[in-house]
């Protein structure tokens, strides 16, 4: 019978079945400091060991400062949380990428760049944006802290099979429009819970044409439509990205893996429970205006005029029926597991080199990892940003979640490349407008939201 890619990934990991559920084998587990203290505690309570420590990899990202990394962490709670992760990993034999090392970064950035994320595997992390790793043709999804302990002890999880949705992006992406805009256009089309219960496969020529970074951006945002997982079938772009990565298979293992990876695509006659087609030629740069990622519009649009969204719009301090273009910003943030990779920084730098951050705007660039930072510096991107008046920081989640000291004051309006415009996400009362790296850079220079297509020549 014809199978979708999701079916193939699922079938390859069934350990046992009961009714419509399966006990799935979990190949890889990523850990960070915030979602695991209680998971390790649960292991201790039940006197359990970690079944396969080498399938686990830990890093601190959420609560770490993005400055003065040589000094001890100032915030006592954050320092304790990071130290606890390090201690727990040592106690249970799990590798921890040190904060001061060359490999630290956001968990969803380091997995792929280490070659820890691979096609055909199941991968979990106590973090909803684990869907990011689906860009490699992996079945990757976020779990809670209790499930993290189950995975560590058993290498399995009970799961119910999702329905399948294929989102086909046809055509060629226009100038000034990026994977972030594709993701926001998809969320706009289905709504914040429109893909709940589905596994989404992204397909079509516009997806094939995306770099791995772009595909990760797309899969990363899948959770914002309610789906737990997004997948892209692996292809030559995927293999080229993975070859020679530190933890990717090498030698004969590489050839054997590659032969298998080439089988990982949906069969031509496979059917999906839901099909959506989006013509990318018609996508404009998108900007969120509310407090849910589906409250999003093309940059040229005017805000809704009705009563319905008034609560979100009151929080955001925007007027019904007003244009999006021209909204004055106080902050600009380029980073996060959505848009903190080299490609994203290049796109932002290409705009930043044309001007200066507007007076009164604080703009910061937070690379997704130490490797991204080093690669960007090797290309001179840091100099472009610094010359234009952006801050160039150390890697971490930073203003995506505002758990460290990168926090916005109440009422501050921020153009942000992150993934959630939830109330208070960047600080109590702060207002977040999600957009692409190029759009954020353009807004930083203009001091207000602009259409990046009017800026690039």
């Amino acid at each position, binding site marked *: 019978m014809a199978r979708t890619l999701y079916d193939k990934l699922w079938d390859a990991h069934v350990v046992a079945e009961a009714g419509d559920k399966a006990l799935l084998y979990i190949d890889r587990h990523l850990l960070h400091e915030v979602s695991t203290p209680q998971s390790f505690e*649960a292991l201790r309570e039940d006197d359990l060991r970690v079944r396969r420590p080498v399938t686990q990899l830990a890093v601190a990202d959420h609560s770490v400062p993005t400055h003065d990394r040589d000094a001890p962490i100032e915030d006592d709670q954050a320092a304790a949380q990071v130290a606890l992760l390090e201690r727990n990993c040592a106690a249970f034999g799990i590798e921890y990428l040190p904060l001061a090392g060359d490999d630290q970064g956001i968990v969803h950035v380091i997995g792929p760049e280490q070659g820890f994320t691979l096609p055909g595997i199941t991968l979990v992390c106590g973090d909803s944006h684990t869907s990011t790793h689906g860009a490699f043709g992996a079945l990757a999804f976020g779990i809670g802290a209790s499930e993290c302990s189950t995975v560590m002890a058993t290498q399995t999880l009970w799961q119910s099979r999702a329905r399948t949705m294929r989102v086909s992006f046809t055509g060629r992406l226009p100038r000034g429009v990026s994977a972030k805009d594709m993701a926001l256009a998809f969320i706009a089309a289905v709504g914040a819970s429109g893909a709940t219960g589905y596994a989404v496969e992204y397909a079509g020529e516009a997806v094939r044409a995306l770099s791995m970074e772009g595909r990760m951006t797309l899969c990363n945002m899948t959770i914002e439509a*309610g789906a737990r997982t997004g997948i892209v079938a692996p292809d030559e772009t995927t293999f080229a990205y993975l070859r020679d990565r530190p933890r990717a298979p090498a030698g004969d293992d590489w050839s054997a893996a590659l032969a298998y990876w080439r089988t990982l695509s949906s069969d031509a006659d496979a059917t999906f429970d839901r099909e959506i087609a989006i013509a990318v030629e018609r996508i404009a740069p998108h900007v969120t205006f509310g407090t849910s990622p589906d409250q999003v519009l093309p940059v040229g649009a005017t805000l809704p005029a009705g009563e319905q969204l008034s609560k979100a719009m009151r929080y955001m301090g925007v007027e019904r029926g007003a244009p999006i273009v021209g909204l004055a910003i106080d902050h600009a943030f380029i980073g996060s597991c959505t848009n903190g990779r080299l490609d994203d920084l290049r796109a932002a730098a290409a705009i930043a080199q044309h001007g200066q951050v507007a007076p009164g705007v604080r703009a910061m660039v937070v690379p997704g990892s130490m490797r991204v930072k080093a690669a960007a510096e090797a290309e001179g991107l840091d100099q472009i940003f610094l010359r234009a008046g952006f801050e160039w920081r150390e890697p971490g989640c930073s203003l995506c979640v505002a*758990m460290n000291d990168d926090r916005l004051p109440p009422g501050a309006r921020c153009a942000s490349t992150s993934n959630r415009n939830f109330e208070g996400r960047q600080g109590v009362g702060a207002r977040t407008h999600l957009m692409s790296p190029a759009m954020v850079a353009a807004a930083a220079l203009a001091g207000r939201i602009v259409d990046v297509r009017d800026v690039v020549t």
Partner: protein
Amino acid sequence: MRALSVVEGQAVSLPEADVDTDIIYPARFLLITAKKGLGAYAFADRRTDPEFPIHTDNTRPILIAGPNFGCGSSREQAPWALDDLSFRVLIAESFGEIFYGNCFRNGILPIRLGAAIVAELRGEAVRDAVIRVDLTAQTVATPSGLFTFEIAEDRREALLNGWNDTRRILALHGDDIARFEQGQRRSAAWLWTKEDMDT
């Protein structure tokens, strides 16, 4: 895990849609590494509004929430905090998927019901009526009505018995896991290279 079969009491109504786990448990409190006592931080940025219906001294065991409740971040602090606020049953049209699963693992029963029934239950909550939820019978009873709800059988059984997922998997499927691993060592040896080198 704490077992749950019958929950009877008054309910709180929170009608808003898309209440994400950042609202339920703001990120800055994720620096706390404990699992207990988190109710004090739940809805911290909403409780400044005097109209906000959920208070830290809550004793009502049932929450009638809006659609897509618990969407967003996978943080299990959201159900831990709700648990600490005495909530045992959550009723909504729909839930964020990860949050929905996290509830069961903490002895909280999330119930999905149609919009019309949720609206009726919301009315009962506002009237301070006593609502009785029976997991064995899969019913929600109010002074004026009786509604049945759907739930996956394995989830119902686990909650009724208070089973610990991890221990249960190890006890029932230890051999299955070992067999799967033997197979994968052959079919996808590249996923095992490191262990094979270590041993």
